[in-house]
């Protein structure tokens, strides 16, 4: 079964100091596949790639190459090659010697080296550059040489660390197509790291979406785009509006104050869910009567192929809509969404659940400080309990000093009529907050919770 997997990563974890960069990573790579590790900066994707290359040793877990554990093998003995982000071409060698570097180390006859280097330079369209010094090459040309230098060794897997990040847009698009072509011609497995979702969708057979050291979703580009498993993936891949909703029963979901038919089943009845609506999936028309709901166009911008409009819906939500036709701002429009264009996701959480310790009947300690609240009589001092706080009951203050504790806005999501923020407290705990106020990522905030909004519950198990 595992025979088809050229790389199999099992329970890989890595910490730098106190920071857990990778947390229990599991996935496999099929032979010949183009797989992309996609995520925002700091999500651990590069660390993961460097572990596969052998530059970083994992704390826990194993990396299997064709079924053999390579975790203890140094980089120079791994049959893998890397294309580095900044190319890392050797400045004291010319193009030919750069590409021939690996072959010379492996004591391959000079004649064969020459053949292979020439063949590879031809593949990356750099035939006439053999004698050029690498400093005289443009970014795109250096990129090609770096790819040739890695591929000439016929590695079992080619690792690419954001190889196109330093190129301008036009060049990047061209190189994407070429990379895809090279992958097809060589049949070598590619593991590609990028933070550019469009690049990932264009190039990959499989995408591994990562955030904060964890894998969020693994799937084909269409799977990931059409059926994101959580709000992070939905928000990160493509444009989308993510809304709070309620699954009324199978095939029926309520959001934005209306009931919609959908194709999802098995969530249960009256379960809170997240609903993802892609802007291109909203059908907009001047026919208000025949539509599911209505709204007033707030803004309309021409984006080249389509118009991007923000519409205020009849129940006070803001919805992004893309259409080939434009509608004047201020005009009343009808809106509909087809059942199979509504993506319903289970909510990861419906309120903050925080581990706490009872101090006395009026106080608990949690998140590194003491909080006033009413503790039910059944608990006594020293009991380990759970404190529940609704998303909209966490107060955020402009000054860190004004709050009970400080934190930083870590991630934000617009949910049509309010923002859903992830706050990272100074002690490294997470809090999720619903607010109408506008905050930016990285804002420092003070955090406060009213005593009446803290609900103490028994810890299960």
């Amino acid at each position: 079964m595992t025979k088809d997997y050229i790389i199999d990563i099992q329970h890989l974890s890595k910490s730098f100091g106190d920071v857990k960069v990778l947390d229990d990573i599991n996935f496999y790579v099929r032979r010949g596949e183009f797989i992309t590790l996609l995520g925002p900066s700091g999500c651990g994707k590069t660390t993961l790639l460097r572990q596969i290359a052998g530059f970083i040793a994992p704390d826990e877990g194993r990396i299997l190459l064709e079924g053999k554990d390579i975790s203890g093998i140094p980089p120079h003995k791994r049959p893998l090659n890397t294309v580095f982000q900044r190319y890392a071409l050797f400045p004291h060698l010319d193009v030919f010697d750069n590409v021939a570097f690996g072959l010379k180390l492996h004591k391959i006859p000079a004649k064969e080296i020459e053949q292979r280097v020439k063949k590879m330079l031809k593949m990356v369209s750099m035939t006439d550059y053999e004698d050029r010094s690498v400093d005289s090459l443009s970014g795109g040309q250096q990129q090609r040489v770096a790819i040739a230098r890695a591929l000439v060794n016929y590695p079992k897997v080619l690792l690419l660390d954001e190889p196109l990040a330093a190129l301008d847009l036009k060049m990047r698009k061209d190189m994407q197509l070429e990379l895809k072509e090279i992958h097809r011609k060589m049949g070598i497995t590619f593991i590609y790291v990028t933070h550019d979702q469009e690049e990932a969708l264009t190039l990959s057979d499989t995408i591994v979406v990562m955030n904060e050291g964890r894998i969020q979703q693994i799937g084909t580009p269409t799977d990931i785009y059409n059926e994101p498993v959580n709000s992070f993936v939905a928000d990160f891949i493509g444009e989308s509006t993510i809304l709070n909703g309620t699954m009324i029963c199978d095939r029926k979901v309520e959001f934005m104050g209306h009931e919609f038919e959908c194709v999802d089943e098995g969530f249960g009845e009256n379960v809170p869910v997240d609903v993802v609506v892609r802007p291109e999936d909203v059908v907009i028309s001047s026919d208000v009567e025949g539509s599911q709901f209505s709204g007033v166009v707030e803004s309309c911008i021409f984006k080249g192929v389509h118009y991007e409009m923000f519409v205020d819906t009849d129940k006070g939500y803001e919805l992004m809509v893309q259409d080939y036709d434009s509608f004047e701002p201020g005009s009343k429009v009808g809106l509909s969404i087809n059942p199979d264009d509504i993506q319903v996701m289970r909510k990861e959480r419906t309120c903050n659940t925080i581990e706490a310790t009872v101090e006395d009947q009026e106080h608990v300690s949690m998140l590194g400080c003491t909080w006033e609240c009413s503790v039910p009589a059944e608990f006594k001092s020293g009991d380990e309990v759970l404190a529940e706080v609704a998303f909209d009951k966490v107060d955020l203050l402009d000054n860190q000093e004004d709050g009970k504790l400080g934190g930083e806005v870590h991630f934000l999501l617009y949910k049509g009529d309010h923002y859903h923020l992830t706050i990272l407290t100074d002690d490294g705990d997470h809090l999720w907050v619903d607010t109408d106020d506008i905050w930016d990522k990285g804002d420092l905030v003070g955090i406060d919770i009213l005593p009446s909004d803290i609900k103490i519950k028994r810890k299960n198990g």
Partner: protein
Amino acid sequence: MVKRSNWSIPYLVFMLVFVVLPLLLIVLYAFQDSAGHFTFSNITHFFSDSDSLSTFAVSIEVAIENTLICILLGYPAAWILANRKYNRSAVTVVLFLMPMWINALMRTLATAELFNMLGIALGKGTLLFGMVYDFLPFMIYPIYTTLMKMDKSYAEAAEDLGAAPWTVFWKITVPLSLPGVMSGVLMVFMPTVSTFAISEFLTNNKIKLFGTIIQENINSSMWNYGAALAFIMLVIIGITTLFQGSEHGEVEGGLI
């Protein structure tokens, strides 16, 4: 209105008086006899005088030996200092470079005393010891800065392509740090040729260097011949810097 370019006038005057003028004087004296008439005799005298020539040869020999020893000792030291695995503290680097801040004469006198105390006879060995001791930091520092500035991804790329650590060192680290070595050589080789204090104190003038004979001539009021010797040395320095400049482009990571 005062033009901003006028601000450079004090510096220009300084350069003129303390750099350009002395150099011109050296050239002037070198091509004059004691009566002030133009002549090549000072230069021709040097090339026909076997004593001067052999002193010159000894100087070059000592300078080459000193430079080689400095590279052999300085390179590994710089490499260890620049390697985060072995050294994470800037203090160690400062400790290595500290001798540079102490007057060379004082260090040399102290070294001579040390040899006296230990009863070691002064000669070629003690001369080289003193030279290496004096000039080693000037070799370590430029190599250290080039190694520190070197992009670590080069070594990683080489390793990734199959090079064992030792091969990475010889094929990547050493060639890429050559500019540092070159500027180290510049800092060590020429000053060694012209030094006279070290040979005076550490060999009791048994071994004379080129610097020594310049100093002796000037001291005994043979201004013209002394200037001619200084001129010859300037030409040599000029040639070596030109040679290095053309071969390696800009000398990076240097101290100069």
